């Protein structure tokens, strides 16, 4: 019990307290301490990385061996990752190396494409969900439309009313961005910021310990 629960909580408290204090102490010693922590943090992170890779291979190998539905795709994934390792061993990682080419022309290309699907999703979402059901929904809708017009050249071209000294769509969208939008975001930042601060504090005090998991 002591070794499994108490000690970690003590470590958390000490580390948290010291690091928070360190921020206010510019002295040479405190800086050295800080640098050491940076080095250590990096190294810990490095080995923490293993966890992810392990889980990846475990999940997919598991699928293949169990012949779970679509197991072939898991096989492909595994082979591809191995292929990358081999490629790196053969040709290095420099520009134009097999390794880089593979990455750029498969993974990079595919990811970019998949996220470009969002262009379609967002259009259909807008079409489906942007209904002026309530005044607030209308406000959201309007803001979005103005923003869409204001951020592209055509917005300037169609705001004919500027000749009467009225602000162009572009300027209006700028205003929405810099004023109401900014206010909304700041309100959220101020609140959410406090939330995460409290979380950090609770972690330091050992009140929040979910991350340690139960045994």
């Amino acid at each position, binding site marked *: 019990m002591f070794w499994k629960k108490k000690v970690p909580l003590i470590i958390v408290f000490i580390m948290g307290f010291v690091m928070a204090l360190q921020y206010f102490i*510019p002295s040479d010693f405190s800086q050295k301490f800080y640098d050491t922590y940076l080095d250590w943090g990096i190294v810990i992170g490095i080995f923490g990385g293993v966890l992810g890779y392990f889980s*990846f291979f475990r999940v997919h190998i598991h699928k293949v061996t169990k012949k779970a539905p679509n197991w072939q795709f898991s096989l492909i994934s595994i082979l591809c990752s191995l292929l990358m390792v081999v490629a790196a061993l053969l*040709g290095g990682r*420099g520009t134009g190396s097999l390794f880089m080419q593979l990455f750029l022309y498969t993974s990079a290309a595919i990811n970019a494409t998949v996220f470009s699907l969002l262009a379609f*999703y967002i259009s*259909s979402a*807008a079409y489906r969900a942007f209904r002026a059901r309530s005044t607030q929904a209308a406000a959201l809708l309007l803001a979005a439309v103005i923003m869409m017009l204001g951020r592209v050249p055509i917005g300037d071209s169609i705001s004919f009313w500027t000749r009467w000294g009225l602000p162009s769509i572009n300027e209006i969208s700028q205003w929405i961005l810099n004023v109401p939008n900014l206010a909304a975001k700041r309100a959220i930042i101020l609140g959410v910021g406090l*939330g995460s601060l409290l979380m950090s504090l609770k972690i330091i005090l050992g009140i929040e310990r979910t991350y340690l998991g139960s045994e």
Partner: protein
Amino acid sequence: MKRLTSVFLIFLIITFAFALANSSYAPKPQTPKLIDIPGDAGTNVLLQWRHFETVPGIRYDILRSEDGKNFEVITPLQTKTITYEPQDQPENDVSDLGYFLVLVPQENDLPIARVIKATEENRDSIISAGGKKILRVELGVPPLEEMEKLPNKFALGDFYRVIPDEEIANRPQPMTVPQKLFDALGIKIPSLGDVSIELTPKAEELEFVRKGKRILAAGEDNMPLTLKYGKQIVSFVTEDARYTVKSDNIQFLDRKSDKRDMEAGKHYIYKVRLYQKDIPIKKIYVDSDTAGITPQDEPPVVPDKIEALYDRKSNTAVIHINQTSGLSAFFDNKTYTIFKTTAEDTACERGSEIRKVSASIRAVILKDVDSTDVLYIVVEDEGGQTTKTGLIPLTPVELEKISLPPNLRVRDVENDRGQQIAIRWDPPTLAVGYSVEDVAPKMMQEKVASKNIFYLPTEKGGTLFVAEDPSQVPDGARKVLNLSYTVPGGKKVLKITYQMWTNSEDKALYGEFSLDGKDKIDKDNTGELQFRNIAEGEYSLIGHIIKSSGSRLKNPEANIDMKIDATHIHSVPIDVPPYIYYIYRGTDAEDLSTFEYVGKVGADAREFKDIFDDYKTAHHKYYYIVQAIGPDGAVAQSEPLGPVEGISNWFNTSKLVIFFGVLVFVGVALFFIYHAKRGKQFYIRPIAGIVHIDEALGRATEMGKPIVYITGLGYIDDIATLSSITILGRVARKAAEYQCRIFVPCYTPLVMIVAQETVRNAFLDAGRPDLYNEEDVYYIAAQQFAYAAAVSGLMIREKSAANFFMGRFYAESLILAETGASTGAIQVAGTDDMTQLPFFITACDYTLIGEELYAASAYLSNDPMQRGSLKAQDFLKAIEMILLVVGSLAATAGMWWFTNAFRALGGD
């Protein structure tokens, strides 16, 4: 399915083929030229060699050895990665132009290439002289297999393949001329500045172009034209070989450092190693021949710029000593000893020593000489070797009186690690400049080709004239085709630019100005203020420097009151006095030779920070001397300041506000946590979202379809994720009660483990551990897209009736929500991530916005601790609101000191 795997296998094979196709073809690299840096302590060696464009290879290693046997790698240097280009351009075939390549051999270096155009007469002699007919030139590096067909030889020279382009040459060429030229011509142009004109092309350019296709050697006249119409030739191809001429000169300086040792008089052997590929298993490389050198500790090099002035007014001499040579950084000069002698003493032997100073001194003041004296300087280096300068006569002059800045002082820099010492002086000064600009000047364009205006370039700018008859146009004159210029758009804007010449003791924050009663402050100290559409006329500008306390700096220099002339478009720059301050650091106030130059600053500085590499070196007693240098060479020198030493501080007072903030925060938090611990149940208003959560669950059970619960992409110490986990507990429990299946695909392993525990416990509490299936709470991959794709797949396949998205999300949020919506599931989302909220709001049936997520989790878990911290959050929010109101009121009332208190710069 089989087809797919086979497709994949083919794909595998292809890529492997590529890997192996990378052939290994590289000639021996050139032997490095070794140069011993003169005037140094024999601790620097410069390596030089040529890298030819067509030599494949990823990097050079530089190797050094003392015995010629075991070499150590000093450093790797990357080569430019080659881009291989196809060779099919017909214009690169020059066989019909009759060019011959002749190689002129050289002493221990590559031959020099000459390209000669053969005529009937000289063809035979060229061939007999070993000339080779050039069949093709290459402007890029051909593919490896292409290159292997011919032996690759190397020669020196820069050549260009000229393929002139009539179209480009005939394009009108831009140029700008002052407006007055047109006035002289009698053409009125209401331009704001210069007028840009478009001219017919130069005669010589057309001539150059008309000469046709050819090969030109660099360095010939009309190089700019060559560059414009030519491309540098990488290699010449003859029947028997490819001669590469394009190369870049690689240099590397090997010098003594904490990593590497180097001694004068010791013999070192170098070679370079060219790597083809860098493969852990097997390295493919070629070594150059070795070359040896014995670096020497040369006698010191005397300063090449010594200026000795004798000021008649003050009867003192000042000597300005400078090393302008680029190599001076390597010199190991230690001291200058200045001798006084007579003009007869040409050998500089009979002088009497008058001053000994460190060799880093830039200027010396000598009181004990008179105008007839002649000086010479003996330079001594670290090794004790000496060199004398020639005789230095004193040039009699009358120097302006120059004074040191007031209140010079040295201080240990506050709130730092202790590795900085500051030299500070006064007075804090507000320097202001301004510019009157035209907001939206109109662009005017005019075609004047018909007006027959010609431009003739001359030494002083050139002239314009009109000539009806082209025949009387002097050669070199070019016709003006088009004009473009800007005319005022009416609205004027006045830009005030200012600088605060202060040091950190003045605690200056920003400038405050008022233009004829119109006040403006520059809270973020951007150094610029704008007064929009101002009327023409004179204005008076008053300005002050505001301190962090909110009060103004008192001294007159820090407050300005100036006239501003806004009658026309012009600008008045900030003017900086032409002084320079040299700073020297010494360890002994008595012995001036211990003082070393540490840096210089301009007259706009009020502080010089001497930054040491580490605390230890800074933690000694130091003295400083400041020299003020006038534009005419006058020098004023301070007494040694100090002693002072770098002290590392134990509290950063500039972060006091933050510290206070932390205290308040922790105080409030602890208060509520304490009460929560004592089991006090705080009231939390019901959150609308929770109803919807239950509703969704109910719906799922009616339909007997599973639930999908997403904990987001956040890590386990992320508040959003933790709240999500809490809510998951509740959802899972209900799910267990209603006996409907729940899927929890996870993004990070740690979250997965915690989620598994949570769900398992929930099922236990609900008394249905039998329904719990470990497989349903699983890890996918810590890759955004892979995760999104897999989850979408899950939702489509399982036709989930209810989807929950709670936690931290990024771009994938819409993919998830839209796919979910397309399957017609009822969806509840919750995130504190501003950017993703809009998508959940549009695509989901209900969304917990920002803190509502935390609130919901607090509300669901009857854990008093969570409610307690939510309460604390509310309390702190209340404080924030009060501060906001008070702050805005204070700002409105002009009491900036209040808002400034929150500026909380932290650090400086």
